[in-house]
């Protein structure tokens, strides 16, 4: 399938990512993919399926198991003018590369006073809900959002997946690109004709009673919650943040000024998580509009739980609705 023809068609998130990566490689010969089994196999989740066959082994590189080596090698490619896209096989596998990401990827541009750019995209299938345990179900975004120099984004639907991965690759800054792996094959959706700016949040369901802000894997949970709340007469405004860093504070604050209430939900653990930062910004910028404290419904402050407990650990529909009840009862 040629990339230009996917606009207007319905794809799964996995296929949309594959098409987005293909388009990025077609558009810019400097785009190079690298990672464990991304070539012949097409990746554990088949997101890079067929790319090596079409673009060759030099542009879709099967690497050894060496995350620090993969990301660090990408740094060298990037400062010599390439746009590497690294696939980290699972969220928890990014930590062996943590040193390179926070010490080199994030900081070389600043440290060299702008002499070099580091346009690397680090794709991470992240989050739970697939019955796996730790290392395979984690949400590590707060570590990276805490590091200046990195951008952190998460796609939540196929159209965003298609466009955002291309925007991330074209960006001159390093981008941690989070793919909610349990949504890879969840539902097909139409690919929009044009992208939304990468760091712009989007109101995906208008409402008046309270704002529900989230990103990535929990966007679908938030929409379900809004549907259920509407049946009870509570109209929730749902915001897909899309970008964890930088956060589009303005869109959230605008919404809170109208609704007076905010609940933030994500799979990452509670303490020092993205919701805490959003709560801080909202109370700084919309203090007099708030009718209730900003509430958070997130993963708990524990290691990722065993598979039979993950439904209780994740912010599921019940937990989000419970949060909405508490928010509305103030």
């Amino acid at each position, binding site marked *: 399938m040629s990339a230009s023809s996917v606009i207007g068609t319905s794809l799964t998130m996995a296929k949309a990512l594959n098409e987005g990566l293909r388009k990025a490689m077609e558009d810019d010969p400097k785009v190079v993919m690298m990672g464990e089994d991304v070539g012949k196999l097409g990746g554990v989740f088949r997101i890079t399926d067929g790319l090596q066959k079409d673009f060759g082994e*030099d542009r879709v590189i099967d*690497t*050894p198991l*060496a995350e*620090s*080596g993969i*990301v*660090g*090698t*990408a*740094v*060298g*490619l*990037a*400062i*010599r*003018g*390439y746009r*590497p896209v690294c696939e980290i096989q699972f969220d928890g596998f990014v930590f*062996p590369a943590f*040193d*390179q990401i926070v*010490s*080199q990827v994030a900081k*070389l*541009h*600043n*440290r*060299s*006073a*702008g*002499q*070099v*750019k*580091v*346009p690397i995209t680090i794709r991470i299938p992240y989050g739970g809900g697939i019955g796996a345990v730790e290392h395979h179900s984690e949400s590590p975004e707060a570590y990276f959002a805490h590091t*200046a*120099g990195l*951008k952190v984004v998460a796609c939540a639907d196929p159209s965003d997946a298609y466009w955002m991965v291309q925007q991330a690759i074209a*960006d*001159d*800054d390093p981008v941690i690109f989070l793919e909610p792996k349990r949504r890879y094959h969840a539902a097909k959706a139409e690919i929009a004709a044009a992208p939304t700016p990468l*760091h*712009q949040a989007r109101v995906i369901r208008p409402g008046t009673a309270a704002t529900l802000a989230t990103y990535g894997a929990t966007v679908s949970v938030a929409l379900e919650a809004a549907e259920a709340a509407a049946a009870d007469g509570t109209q929730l405004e749902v915001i897909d943040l899309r970008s964890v860093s*930088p*956060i*589009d*504070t*303005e869109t959230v604050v605008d919404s809170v000024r109208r609704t007076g209430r905010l609940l933030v939900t994500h799979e990452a653990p509670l303490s020092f998580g993205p919701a805490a930062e959003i709560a801080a*910004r909202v109370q*700084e*910028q*919309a*203090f*007099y509009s708030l009718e209730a404290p900003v509430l958070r419904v997130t993963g708990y402050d524990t290691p990722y739980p065993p598979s039979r407990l993950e439904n209780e650990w994740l912010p599921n529909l019940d937990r989000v609705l419970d949060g909405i009840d508490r928010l509305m009862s103030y």
Partner: protein
Amino acid sequence: MTVERESTSTSVVDPGPTWGEYYRQMSLIRAFELRAAEMYQRAKIGGYCHLNLGEEATVVGLMAALEPRDYLFTTYREHGYALARGLEPGPVMAELFGKTTGVSGGRGGSMHLFDRKVRLLGGYGIVGGQIPPATGAALALTYRGEPGPNAEAVMCLLGDGTTNIGAFHESLNLAALWHLPIVYVIVNNGLGMGTPVDRSAAEPDLYKRGCSYRITGERVDGDDVIAVRDAANAALTRARAEREPGLLETVSNRLRGHSVVDPAKYRSKQEAERLRALDPVHAVRARLIAEQVLDEDTARRIDEEAEARVDAAVAFADASPDPDPATLFQHAYATAVPNAPHRLPADPVVPVPELLP
């Protein structure tokens, strides 16, 4: 531990301009580093400051082998390499001072000298941080041109302690697997801060650590400029023409502590005296005079010229402005970042419109 030096070079002193230039560079590095230590003690330089004192012959030999078209990644002990690569002492000293006229605009400091023009792609303050990026730069070279005697190559410096870091082994594996034009140089000064090599490396013959990656290793006497230059040249030639990575170990002494603030208490007085007697700058100077390559007057003139250049570098750094706080956010991102909290103390915590009816 005293590392046995298996030098392959008999290092005949070749008369002519080469030796004069090598001594000129060694003398400049020595003068620069002694002055850097002094400036550190006078609090002109903050944080930490790692000197090439005792490694001048290694620095000059390696940089003599590296062509202008090649790329260099170094460690945090890199002032000498920057000077030998042709950077002016003024902007290097200014970087140590943290001034805007520094080679990295004052953002890198002593450990992060950076200059794209001379293809110096960084000093790196984290041990081993430079190795995977250098390997990637070598991978980039393979996309650009064919192997051959005029091909570009990468030289990646590291210390003896760095050979114990995982990134070293990951990178050597990748370089060998992908046939990359890169030479890793282990500058072995015998000590990882204060821990001797044989107490940190299970294979203390560090040049052998490339064996499991089938990378050719060689050890040379780091006090011998010519031996270092020739060994580096041979490894670079293989890297250029055959796309085979190399591992070169130079053995020299660190005349002072790990950094300026390290009193080097792990060394006995006798050991310190023994090292001083082996000082490579003094040794080369004495030998060049004894073999009548330089006369005493010429050597003195070279030393005086080095002092004068360093004087001028300090004056330049001193007179240069500190960075403006408003530039704090300037290079954190390469692109304009919306909504980034760029609040400086004078900005109101609560935006005024929020307070007004």
